[in-house]
């Protein structure tokens, strides 16, 4: 099976499992992004057909929500909190360090494909600001040093 047909098969299976839920579009998009890391534009026609929506409607939903992406992310996605609590604890300086260390801005992926950097507006870890998330792992009281350590550790585990 080619990569594209296996992608389509995955998407089709997710659609048939979830399409009968009331308001099924977000659960389906989550399912696809969980399985593939993003929602490929070529999956939009199948999702639209499965839910009896127009492709424009599906695209509109994908583009509305910050979390859904239509391009593949790097191997690890770093969500760095930009919200007030983190700003009060040096979040801006941390953001500058993170961007310099990775050599990328928000919404970008490092050239080696290892890390994607995304802003997030609150991880609910405001008692331990500044905070970030790498994959599903959450980090609190992040400093430039602890960020570097977390990155190195994530690279070693990879």
């Amino acid at each position, binding site marked *: 099976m080619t990569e594209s047909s296996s992608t389509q098969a995955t998407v089709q299976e997710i659609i048939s499992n979830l399409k009968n839920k009331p308001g099924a579009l977000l659960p389906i998009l989550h399912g696809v992004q969980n399985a593939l890391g993003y929602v490929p534009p070529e999956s939009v026609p199948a999702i639209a057909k499965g839910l009896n929506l127009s492709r424009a409607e599906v695209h509109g939903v994908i583009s509305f929500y*910050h979390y859904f992406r239509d391009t593949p992310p790097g191997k690890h996605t770093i969500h760095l909190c930009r919200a007030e609590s983190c700003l009060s604890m040096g979040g801006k300086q941390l953001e500058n360090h993170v961007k310099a260390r990775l050599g990328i801005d928000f919404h970008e992926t490092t050239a080696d494909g290892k890390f994607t950097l995304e802003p997030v507006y609150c991880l609910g870890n405001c008692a331990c600001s500044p905070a970030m998330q790498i994959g599903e792992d959450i980090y609190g009281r992040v400093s430039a040093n602890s960020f570097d350590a977390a990155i190195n550790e994530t690279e070693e585990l990879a």
Partner: protein
Amino acid sequence: MSITIYVPCDSSAISLGADRVAAAIAKEAEKRSIDIQLIRNGSRGLFWLEPLVEVVTQEGRLAYGPVQVSDVSSLFDANFHQGGMHSLSLGLIEELDYLKKQQRLTFARIGKTDPVSLDDYLNNDGYRGLNNALNLSQADIVKAVTDSGLRGRGGAAFPTGIKWNTVLNTVSDQKYIICNADEGDSGTFSDRMVMEGDPFVLIEGMTIAGLAVGATQGYIYLRVEYPHAHRALNTAIEKAYQAGFLGDDIRSSGKAFHLEVRLGAGAYICGEETSLMESLEGKRGLVRFKPPLPAISGLFGKPTVVNNVISLASVPIILDKGGDYYRDFGMGRSRGTLPLQLAGNIKHTGLVELAFGLTLRELLYDFGGGSASGRPIRAVQVGGPLGAYLPESQFDTPLDYEAFAAIWAVLGHGGVVAFDDTVDMAEMARYSMEFCAIESCGKCTPCRIGSTRGKEVMDEIIKGRDLNKNIPLLRDLCNTLLNGSLCALGGMTPYPVLSALNHFPEDFGINDKANAA
């Protein structure tokens, strides 16, 4: 005798190393052939002490913290598993001032129990509210909630009982209960702590709400940023179904209630109730016009109760102990307790549940211990990103909905974020406009265009350009947002912006307050 040791599974505790500490304790115990039972509890909400390890002794639960992996071996050397003294010893957990001074109603169980153990829940007063509710008429359940004086804890503070009553009295073949768990406000984490630390209390509260208004389906709309809460909720829901606390025949009463968690996708606006319902229906999260009220025509056009996590999690104790019990806490028209969240530049960050009426200063200094940096606290934002910034001169305001409204501020969801004197308030005002621009749903013009223009005007002000034109322009723009927006995002962004300008004009390049006006 087996030894019981608690290490929190709360994601903030995990962010400080709780998982690693738990693994290290298990490994060290095995190495030393000590038989221990390791339980992952919720967090007590004393985050400067996390990871906070507790050991059960005859005297009570002894606390040690903050524990790092490197401390584990020395803790065992000190016989901490039998209550031995160590440099990290904190004494009996329940005797710690920070906890002892609180009035924990909604958070009564959190930190004490294994969050996903139904037995723990039942052994600690769980499901007593539901048992009472099953013997009451729908109107009497609603009456208990109305009598309690409970007002929506999500931020809008609308009386919960009135909302329920509207749904109860609207005839429909299908009604819904929605829990708004899209806790997007910076500085807030009480919803997360409940969902991770006591998910059954939310399930019970929603079930009671379903019985009260005649809704058979509930949805928890959870933000995707909370993966730990997602797992805890799903585990607890499955157990509740297995034990007959959810399903077609709740505890053989013949009454049905079903519950499902749905994930958001990183849109702050979906915390607005009509936008949330659009999202649940599988659409872009565009805000709806009101009326119709969701209580009359909500999810899929059906009567719908939309309540915040804390509101719903407060219902079980109200049905257990009565509306009067809950109402006897608090002041004025703010009844019961509010779980406050101390965050940002604060030494002792954490969860402080208290009856309304404490002053902000008491919270910041008596509980919070002042700033984390040791510098003076200059500004405090209460109520999330749409809440006003308060200067030191307003710190004696009591934490009460009406007292805050009187100084043009909001309590919101109870989040308190402190900033020390290194903060640049013009930058914070710019940030508020930028945030509004990023998160605007785009439906109404004041919010969609006004926020972007606001950011541009703030850029000019920060550069010191044409202040005598740009400051009035900013005020004018805020006035448009305030009065012309469809929902609270555009309508309240002026709170942080104008409060920053009014209280801290010097950061905007204005030397005296008179000229700021």
